[in-house]
């Protein structure tokens, strides 16, 4: 039995988005299917050039903390978000963008990395993915 993981990426904070992709890639590596549903602040990370622009959820200190964590992650040989997304797509992970958030925040498809996005959907799409999942998380 392969199984499936579904994660709602509500937060656009860098550390939480990293967690979502680590769990996503870990699930894919176990042979599971994965869907990441990007909504609200999370959707900003799917904007062109926006992937690693999120602040830290704690101790951001006007971006100083964020820069420090990035440095420490590089030193500990943790993959960059760009690499994580590349691996995620290569292993067949699915990315869903929330249409309602796009309307609310005035984000157009042209502003988003449509090469990463498999589907545009609303809450029904998420529920339909989640009801078939063994693991579902919200970050």
């Amino acid at each position, binding site marked *: 039995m392969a199984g499936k993981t579904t994660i709602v990426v509500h937060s656009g904070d860098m550390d939480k988005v990293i967690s979502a992709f680590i769990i996503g*890639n870990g699930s894919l*590596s176990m042979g599971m299917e994965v869907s990441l549903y990007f909504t609200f602040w999370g959707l900003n990370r799917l904007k062109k050039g926006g992937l690693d622009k999120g602040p830290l959820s704690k101790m951001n200190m006007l971006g100083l903390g964020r820069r420090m964590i990035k440095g420490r992650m590089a030193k500990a*040989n943790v*993959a960059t978000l760009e690499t994580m997304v590349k*691996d995620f797509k290569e292993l067949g992970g699915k990315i869903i963008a929330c249409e309602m958030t796009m309307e609310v925040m005035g984000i157009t498809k042209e502003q988003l990395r449509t090469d990463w996005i498999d589907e545009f959907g609303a809450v029904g799409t998420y529920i339909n993915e989640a009801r078939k999942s063994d693991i579902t998380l919200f970050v």
Partner: protein
Amino acid sequence: MAQIDLDCRHQNCPVPLVQVRKALKKAAIGDIIEVVGTHSASKKEIPMAVEAQGQELLDVKDQGQEWVIRIKKVKEA
């Protein structure tokens, strides 16, 4: 039947797992994947992932600070 060598030394979570999964997808049935690494959690987790995917774990060995894991692809991944 080929042997595929993966060097995951000094790579951190979850890169060794991801590299093994990528290699399993690309390998042909019967191929052996030999992965060497230093990340201690991966030494436990790669065998878990191999089992979860129904592939065959051949052995796990220590070589000083490094570990070497050999996996045989026995079915489509």
